[in-house]
């Protein structure tokens, strides 16, 4: 029996070693940057990491983000958003910042704060914390329905997201979820490959559980907006709203928060097997908003 078990163990070890080698050589898994909680309690990436995703190389800048990092320009723009702005799945040339800069010209400086899973309140916190360093004249915050809902811990507590309890008006502390396990998985590529391909999912029952229950959260969303208006300065903020709902759209208008609503009509804006924009989608969105940005800068400089 001992010999039997030993042979199985050796066989699995050899198979694991070879699969690890093959996965690395063939780049079958994407690399994801490791995260940290910065001194002010916000989640960023650990600086100066490098890797590849969909065969595109990425690098984390000194601020802990993947995108453009111009600061203190005369025409400084700050762009904040979730995975759409982080855009790890496309080359950096397809980022919103790169597209806007290409259209507006090099006299504009762009600083991108993109991180997957960012919430609305987290975007505003980043704006508050980074504005003294970046000095933006205009801040673009890309917003979707999820970013709003995930800001409210009363709807669903997500420990790895910055959230606010709209009843107590207190910001909930962020923790990194399973940091050691994630580190282990990212380093052990064959296990990571197995994980991302759903190999660990047991197939007894497939439950289509959505993130949120179909309850009406509108009163909570309204409370969130009231709190945000009390605590943040929106004078130079332009919301770019995508994948939203009517209630949030109306709320932005009612509170006179400047916004552009992006309506999607074309499926070739999106990546295959992924709900994110591809390079065409990014270009189209940036084309839709640059005129407004340009006008804002003209008004600002006047």
């Amino acid at each position, binding site marked *: *029996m001992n*010999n*039997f078990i030993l*042979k*199985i163990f050796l*066989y699995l070890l*050899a*198979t694991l070693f*070879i*699969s690890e080698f*093959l996965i690395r050589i063939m780049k079958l898994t994407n690399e994801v940057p490791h995260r940290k909680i910065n001194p002010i309690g916000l989640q960023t990436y650990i600086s100066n990491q490098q890797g590849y995703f969909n065969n595109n190389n990425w690098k984390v800048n000194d601020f802990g983000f993947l995108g453009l990092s111009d600061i203190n320009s005369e025409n400084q723009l700050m762009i904040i958003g979730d995975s759409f702005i982080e855009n790890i799945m496309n080359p950096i040339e397809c980022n919103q910042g790169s597209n806007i800069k290409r259209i507006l010209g090099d006299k504009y400086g762009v600083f991108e704060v993109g991180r997957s899973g960012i919430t609305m309140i987290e975007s505003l916190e980043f704006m508050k914390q980074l504005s003294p360093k970046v000095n933006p004249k205009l801040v673009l915050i890309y917003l979707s329905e999820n970013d709003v809902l995930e800001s409210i811990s009363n709807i669903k507590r997500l420990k790895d997201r910055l959230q606010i309890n709209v009843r107590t008006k207190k910001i909930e502390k962020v923790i990194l979820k399973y940091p050691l396990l994630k580190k282990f998985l990212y380093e052990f590529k064959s296990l990571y*490959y*197995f994980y991302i*391909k*759903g*190999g*660990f*999912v*047991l*197939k*007894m029952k497939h439950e289509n559980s959505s993130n949120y229950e179909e309850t009406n959260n509108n009163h909570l969303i309204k409370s969130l907006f009231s709190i945000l208006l009390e605590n943040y300065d929106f004078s130079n903020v332009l919301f770019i709203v995508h994948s939203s709902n009517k209630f949030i759209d109306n709320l932005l208008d009612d509170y006179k928060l400047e916004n552009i609503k992006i309506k999607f009509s074309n499926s070739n804006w999106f990546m295959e097997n992924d709900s994110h924009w591809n390079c065409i989608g990014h270009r189209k969105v940036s084309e839709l908003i640059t005129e407004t940005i340009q006008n804002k800068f003209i008004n600002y400089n006047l």
Partner: protein
Amino acid sequence: MLFNSIEFLLFLATVFILYWFVFNKNLKCQNLLILIGSYFFYAWWDYRFLSLIFLSTILDYVIGLNIPKHTSQRKQKLLLWCSILFNLGVLGFFKYYNFFIESWIDLFNLIGYEIKSVWTLNLILPIGISFYTFQTMSYTIDVYRKKLKPTKDFISFAAFVSFFPQLVAGPIERATNLLPQVLKKREFNYKQGVQGLRLILWGMFKKIVIADSLAPIVNEIFKNHQDFGGGTIWLGVIYFAFQIYCDFSGYSDIAIGTSKIFGFELTSNFKFPYFSRNIGEFWRRWHISLSTWFRDYLYILLGGSKGGRFKSVRNIFIIFLVSGYWHGANWTFIFWGLFHSILFIPSFFFNTNRKYLRSVAGENRIFPSFRELFQMGSTFFLVTIGWVFFRSSDLISSMNILTKMFMELKSPEIKSTGLYLIAFLLIFDWIFKHNEREVLNFKNTLLRWVIYIFLFLSIAYNYLNYSIEEFIYFQF
């Protein structure tokens, strides 16, 4: 629970550890573990139908114990018929009830009486029912025939009926083979364990890599056969021949291999059937546990070949028709059985059906002779024609497909990459054609390990990247 799933691997590892490391000293505990494990394995799919297995187990256990107690032949026969009627009744109700009703309605409609279908029921076919009912029936029949002494140990008997490796798709075990093994103390045997793991690996490869890769192409061609030319349909039918072989023999290999690591030896179910040189040999190599079941419990009961030529031919027809019907409540299966009986009867008349009882094609040679190649090719050709009936959704589709295959010959319109997989399979099968239990047992250690790792990685890659199909024989 599917063999080709991660949950089965976890389940198998857990039961293996408990079986050999925790309950090793106690046979009763080991058998209880097999029983609980088997019920858990079945319940993972649908716990409601466990009651059917349990009922069948209790009934045959009680009947088995009572048959020898009666000295009167009539009473013994009555008990036997109780078991047969119950098992066939359950099988008939769940599997054939709707078919009978619909066939009657169709018949009445044909002669001009319009009948509305209010009698059909929305029944779910309990998985594995065709297999375990035959297994328990074999027990009572063998006890009645005095080939086997009934067991008093209920746990062991229940473990025999529900033994998880072969519960849902065979091999259909005889009580004379499996029950004594359940009742006897088992010792771990290294050679048997290694052989078992090799069979599991090879079975998984056949199922996940070959059968599941061919399945989408086959499904597309059979579903939209009207859109394809003869060449593509030929390719689809050949792919199906190998899909069903790899699917079912893959399952059997995993079942036999899994049993081996627990110290059991199951009946062989496949012995490289596509290397058969005539139809008689094919039926000795394809789904062996079912064909021998019908031979021993039905053909011989009907008189076998003892009552003259006419009676023998009648019995052969019956066996093939019942065998076809066993696969499902559809006329296509009955035609498949009928087609095979027509293929078989000439060899019965010319006494060639018992040819090649012991030998294999290419015996003691690396390559087969031209004569053998022709024989194997023509047998495969005929069997493949039969698969058209088996795979089609109805008889009209079968006829349309056959017409296209022979009347609209064009070169295939789809990629024939599946042929590389088939070639790979045939090479491996040919190398180990002498003993189906010794697959992958290459003499060179390095080569053996390289092949083990290659197979494992291919399985993992296909499992993670392509859709995983249920085993075809689960529906029977």
